[in-house]
């Protein structure tokens, strides 16, 4: 790239040509105010708060969309810039509900930050609030009266997920980002992946908060409240407490959960190992008995929803094994309850997940046994942080502790479930050894690793080549599914995660996660795997004990009853009744 010289507020700086003003300013450690700009997204240039002066031009330039040129002189601190940026901010603010004290984004809101930065003191413009449309789902809440129309939700839903459930509508004063015909998310193509909640700069799209339900369960002395934590939470939670991105906080997290009052703190990684036992054996079964192939993973509930809504005719490709979250719940309410002589009705299972869709998965009617839900309450990484903050726990200063037994023992294979490619790698470690009856020497399965949208790999199983694909982000999943639909899919096994990066980039993860942050989390996950003594699911002693004492063997009748499920073909229906009789 050719280097060019630009001046920002009189300071000369050399940047590559093709740099935008906002990026060039960042090199000088100047953050130009913005709302719609997001480093991982296409430029939108809608909020115009980043308007700056370019010497020689009467009009201002949007710093997010304007490329610098050699000799360009940019001013970011003049009266004209201040008046313009502040004026736009005030107008956006007038169209915002401003219920900051009761907003779930209080203290973590980009609009609030801008107001503080600009010293907004009192509202001088008339308030103009948009109407609200209620959403009926257990995961995502939309508060359109707080929407600042930045369009980040639209871009992530369209570009990354390829779903476009949220898009722009209306014009002028009625312009907004919403669903088609303002339908509730459930009645659209939305799969509740929650990626929109991770990019919304304000409280317009947020996860449904279940922290109070958790607190009430803990406070109920008649309940035995146990908690499971998904692998991707331990490499992300530290973000919220100011630790460097990708810091592993497993031990502190367990201590915090114990301090919060959970009776037992268990690890979803244990259940992930069980998932591998079931899913791996299901794959072998399908290969040996001419079952439906390729078999596709089903541990990402956003992905399962996507299959049900968008590719329901291909639904039999999904593995019937439940997700680790649900397997944990099912085992907790059977094996664990029996072992401890407890009535399963008195056990409350709480999950801490990097995901908002897990709330929906746990609420599925088929995810219950005898009318008792396998998983009672699901909270996200972000909600756990809120609970820790409420309790006044100094997270960073906490000592480390260990997960409880017996559902707290997990292998390296289970841990890497938290990143794209992890399920595949874990499955290969087990399937290879079961088939070959030989030890796998090289555990690292590099072809499945990394943030590339679709990855391909191959394993040689006694002469039978197993072709594998790994996809994350639903736009990539769509490409894989179109191949299957066309009958040209060369794969035997496919891993798909709804969220970009897998669970490390889940919809319930800390806000302001960029691609760089995801990379650090991914490195941390593999670091945990490396540090584990046991790195293959079938070697997990607690899992072996579970099969010996309770389940028999993988795919047994008992295992099927508890650990497998079925999916629905959902026809998308649109209601056009508003058009009238004609």
């Amino acid at each position, binding site marked *: 790239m050719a280097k060019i010289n630009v001046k920002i507020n009189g300071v000369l700086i050399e940047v590559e040509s093709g740099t935008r003003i906002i990026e060039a300013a960042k090199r000088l450690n100047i953050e130009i105010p913005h709302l719609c700009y997001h480093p991982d997204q296409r430029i939108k240039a809608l909020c*115009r708060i980043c308007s700056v002066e370019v010497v020689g031009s009467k009009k201002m330039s949007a710093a997010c969309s304007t490329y610098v040129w050699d000799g360009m002189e940019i001013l970011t601190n003049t009266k004209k810039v201040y008046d313009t940026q502040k004026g736009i901010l005030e107008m956006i603010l007038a169209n915002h509900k401003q219920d900051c004290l009761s907003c779930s984004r209080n203290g973590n809101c980009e609009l609030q930050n801008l107001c503080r930065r600009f010293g907004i003191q009192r509202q001088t413009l008339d308030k103009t609030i948009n109407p609200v449309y209620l959403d009926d789902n257990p995961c995502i809440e939309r508060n359109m009266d707080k929407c600042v129309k930045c369009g980040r939700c639209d871009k992530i839903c369209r570009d990354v997920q390829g779903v476009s459930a949220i898009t722009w509508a209306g014009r002028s004063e009625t312009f907004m980002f919403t669903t088609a015909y303002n339908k509730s998310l459930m009645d659209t193509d939305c799969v509740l992946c929650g990626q929109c909640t991770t990019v919304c700069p304000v409280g317009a799209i947020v996860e449904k908060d279940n922290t109070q339900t958790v607190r009430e369960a803990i406070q109920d002395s008649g309940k035995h409240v146990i908690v499971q934590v998904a692998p991707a939470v331990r490499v992300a939670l530290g973000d919220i407490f100011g630790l460097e991105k990708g810091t592993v906080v497993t031990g502190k997290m367990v201590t915090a959960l114990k301090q919060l009052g959970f009776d037992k703190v268990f690890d979803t990684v244990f259940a992930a190992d069980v998932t591998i036992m079931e899913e791996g054996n299901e794959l072998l079964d399908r290969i040996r008995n001419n079952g439906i192939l390729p078999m596709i993973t089903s541990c990402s509930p956003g992905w399962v929803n996507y299959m049900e809504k968008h590719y329901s005719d291909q639904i039999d490709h999904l593995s019937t094994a439940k997700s680790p979250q649900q397997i944990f719940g099912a085992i907790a309410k059977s094996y664990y309850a029996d072992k401890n002589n407890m009535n399963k009705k008195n056990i409350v299972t709480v999950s801490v997940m990097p995901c908002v869709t897990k709330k929906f998965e746990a609420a599925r009617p088929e995810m219950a046994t005898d009318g008792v839900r396998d998983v009672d309450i699901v909270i996200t990484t972000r909600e756990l942080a809120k609970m820790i903050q409420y309790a006044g726990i100094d997270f960073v200063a906490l000592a480390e502790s260990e997960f409880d037994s017996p559902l707290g023992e997990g292998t390296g294979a289970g841990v890497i479930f938290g990143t794209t490619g992890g399920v595949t790698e874990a499955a290969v470690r087990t399937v290879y050894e079961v088939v070959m009856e030989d030890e796998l020497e090289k555990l690292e399965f590099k072809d499945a690793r990394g943030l590339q949208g679709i990855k391909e790999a191959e394993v040689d199983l006694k002469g039978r080549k197993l072709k594998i694909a790994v996809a994350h982000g639903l736009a990539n999943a769509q490409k894989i599914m179109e191949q299957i639909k066309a009958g040209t899919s060369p794969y035997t096994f496919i891993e798909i995660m709804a969220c970009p990066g897998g669970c490390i980039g889940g919809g319930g993860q800390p806000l302001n996660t960029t691609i760089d942050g995801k990379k650090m989390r991914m490195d941390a996950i593999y670091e945990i795997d490396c540090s584990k003594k046991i790195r293959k699911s079938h070697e997990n002693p607690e899992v072996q004990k579970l099969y010996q004492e309770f389940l028999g063997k993988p795919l047994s009748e008992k295992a099927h009853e508890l650990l497998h499920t079925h999916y629905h073909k959902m026809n998308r229906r649109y209601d056009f009744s508003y058009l009238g009789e004609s």
Partner: protein
Amino acid sequence: MTMAVKFMTKNFGRYDIRSLASYMEIGGLTALKKAIQMPGADIAALLTAAGIKGRGGAAYPMGKKWLQARAVKAAEKVIICNADEGEPCTFKDRTLIQNDPFNLLEGMIIAGYVIEAQHGYIYLREEYSYLKSILLNAIKQLTEKNFLGKNILGKKGFDYELHLCSGAGAYVCGEGTALIESIEGKSGRPRMKPPYIKQCGLYNHPTCVQNVESLSLVAAIVNDENNIYQTYGTKGEKNSIGTKLISVAGNVKQPGVFEIPFGITIRDIIYGLAGGLEGQPISLIQFGGASGKVASKDILDTPYSYEHLIKAGVGVGSGAILVVDESTSVIDFLITTQAFFSHESCGQCAPCREGNRHIRLLLQKIKDGVHTQADIEKLNSIADIMTVSSLCGLGQASQNALKTAMKVFPDAFKIMERGVKIG
């Protein structure tokens, strides 16, 4: 000075607009035949010599635009004729299409030759759907006689097709990038720039957008061997050469479209061509459509030219002249104009969406006589913010009338003296 002339309107009424043969009988397509014997750059040079500025409102030198478009190297290039004519009080393009459709298309074919485009699109205002048959018929006849299609007039490699499109009637679709979105079947919202459409426009092809009037001038200029066109207009350093089609409406006795030489006075136009006012005296005159600036009757003796109008604080814009008499107050006029923009803003960028909303609310306060000095300041600052920071021309220009009215008619914004409550 001649008040009304016939240069680009010389064909009006002289041929059967439904017949190519009839058009050719009066000399139609001679410009095209002549043009394809010339190097493309020479044709652009003719436009430059004639000083033609784009007639959509931005007044960009047309010859320069063609040369730039010609210089872009691409496998496919596109020319769009902007016949959206959504600017209120502007109806000159309609007149050109109604009276001389073949001349417009001839201009488009010559443009295709010069710019080396393969496709031309006419984006016709949705409300002009009754003009569709005229254009489709003309395109069909031109195609049948190989004035469109492959190897036009036997010129090898000169392949050019014309297409007709309409949107759904949004004003913003007159903006080049929104127009392109609309042709592509998307909702008509302007794109951010860059990329500029001259590099990446319709279906990502380099695109050159021209107004109906600009294209309607082309054939006449190519045929104008004696440079008659250049005898019209104002003289001086930054002169306005030639003639201009204007549309005059409002409280005048004879509203209509007139071809005038640049340089006649506003008074000549309003009292001469448009027959003067209906009854009451002039309150204000708006130039260039709803996004244009306003002036008081003090402007009457100003010559109508690019340079004189700018000096007088207004501009040619789309060529519209709206005359408003004293039966409408300045504030009522602004509220009506504002209602238009509050309806037509696409809403995607914050300054235009929110700015138009708040100006609507503030103007209502002024009408109700309950505004304060702070409201006037807000009005000013919001209008300024919109001008400098909006994403597209709509937001940048929608407050032109307000801003000029505040300067020219300060009394209309006076704070009401209100009684003080006693006891």
